[in-house]
């Protein structure tokens, strides 16, 4: 699991690997650090290199949304695969996340 930042504009954090209960704490920690260090209001999460996510990802995303919301920002998501899209839809996460593609 890596969170990589791309330069320029709204920061894009690339989430890779597998996001489950086992990796959730590490992903949460890395994302929070990146969000705080970056200081940007809005962020983009790119799921292109995410190989797997289960419902543990819902908590991670919702927690990050709360953090960003405090700064008045939004979370944009891109390259959401079919599986993750289904999980975002059934959990109602699309009420707070903005899909880019």
């Amino acid at each position: 699991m890596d969170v990589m930042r791309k330069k320029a504009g709204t920061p894009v954090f690339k989430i890779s690997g597998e996001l489950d209960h086992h990796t959730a704490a590490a992903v949460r920690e890395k994302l929070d650090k990146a969000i705080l260090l970056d200081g940007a209001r809005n962020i983009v999460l790119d799921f292109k290199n995410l190989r797997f996510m289960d419902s543990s990802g819902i908590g991670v995303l919702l927690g990050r949304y709360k953090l960003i919301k405090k700064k008045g920002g939004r979370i944009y998501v891109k390259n959401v695969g079919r599986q993750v899209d289904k999980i975002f839809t059934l959990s109602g996460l699309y009420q707070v996340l903005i899909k880019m593609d």
Partner: protein
Amino acid sequence: MKNHMKLNFLGISANENFARSVAGAFASQLDPTLDEISDIKTAVSEAVTNCIIHAYRDKTGEVALEMELEEDTVRVAVEDKGVGIKDVEQARQPFFTTVGGEERSGMGFTVMETFMDEVKVVSKPGYGTIVIMYKKIKGRVGDGIAFARADA
């Protein structure tokens, strides 16, 4: 095709990935699409995670993953000898969780129900829980991606 497997492993989070990978590999004997494999892996991941977080909340115990392939149907059973579920109907409700502060969503059973055709939960407090799931494999006929992968 008729086949069967049973696997026992320690209920620690490192084995979530192991369990779903095994489930995906075993089910692939029915020539499922990549999406169908992902569905099974996701459901198994949810069931095994429930054992680790809920069934064995204060200790570490054994989890059993049992799978049966019969014709075009996969049957998956995930069993623990943990604390059990007092109210199964309540546990299956979307967003219901007994764990606070850990960013748990309470969507585990809802995800299993969404990705599988049928989910049965049998539980006895103090004895454990068994989650049995079924999925009919429609297969990769006409699925270009799966064919390309098989030819590679």
